């Protein structure tokens, strides 16, 4: 089954509060940064039949086209966020 990584970003001009806060934090740590933007990453593993529907999922639900843009990348299952938590954390999530 294919796995997709959806990257959702606010359009420029839309207030990115977390981005601004992180930018201030980095500056406070004396790092020179011009701009910080914060978005969302959503990974989806879907049946092959849903492959043509990924764009529609983004437009209808995962993103708000009025204020957000999105990118769709197919990734290998190995790339997906599968790093395990340390032993003993199982069952916490």
């Amino acid at each position, binding site marked *: 089954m294919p796995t997709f990584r959806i990257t959702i970003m606010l359009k420029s001009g839309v207030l*990115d*509060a977390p981005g*601004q806060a992180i930018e201030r934090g980095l500056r406070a740590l004396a790092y020179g940064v011009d701009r910080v933007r914060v978005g969302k990453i959503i990974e989806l593993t879907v049946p092959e039949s849903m492959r043509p529907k990924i764009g529609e999922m983004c437009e209808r*639900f995962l993103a*708000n086209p*009025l204020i957000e843009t999105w990118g769709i990348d197919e990734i290998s299952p190995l790339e997906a966020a599968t790093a395990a938590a340390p032993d003993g954390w199982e069952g916490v999530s």
Partner: protein
Amino acid sequence: MTWGVVIFPGSNCDRDCVHVVEAVLGQRVVEIWHEDRTLDGVDALILPGGFTYGDYLRSGAIAATAPVMGAIREFADRGGPVLGICNGFQILTEAHLLPGTLVRNAGLRFRCVRTWVRVESTATPFTAMLPAGAVLQMPIAHGDGGYLARPDEIAALEAAGRVVFRYSDPDGRVTPTANPNGSMAAIAGVANAAGNVVGLMPHPERASEALMGSVDGLRLFESAVAFLANRVPTAPIAAAASASVASVSVASVAGGAR
């Protein structure tokens, strides 16, 4: 008439709305659970505030996919009065029952303050009995309250008289400092094209008793009551609703809701 208050996981002013409608207005009210697929013949609907589904994805986005939304959409399409308060407003925009969206407040702060709004349109059930230009004091409590729409959409809303409330000072002057969240055109509330669906960020249910410091919010609910009373003879929806009310037990509905 019977009011419905729709309750989602994470709704948090639902009881306040029920209290105002029941105890202050003396109206019948039923609680409608987000998994319900019918509205039990209500005459008017409130989508209360809160942080439904933890505001995951975007405020209101998950709630807009709830099973009850089909019935709400049908009710709205038939002209039933729907009031979305705060998170309820966000849900209505995510469900595309209202235009635009609500983004993070300018200034990055969660704002929990008294605000004043000027009534810009009386062509809705919730403002029909208010004088145009009336200034209402109601509190806000939100992090994502900045109203945003495409500039051409804002212009179209203004031209069509669909901006219902605008943040103002207590004297009705729209000033930059009176706008608590950076909303475009200081918009605090809008209506759909037919005028029956209204969303606003301020909380009228928290300004409905003298004890709360303002009774201005009560005017919205009173207005809807008077509006429906006036149109009952000709409105098929009201007739259908009152016919089915008899078969609905308040206790069973409320029981099913929780």
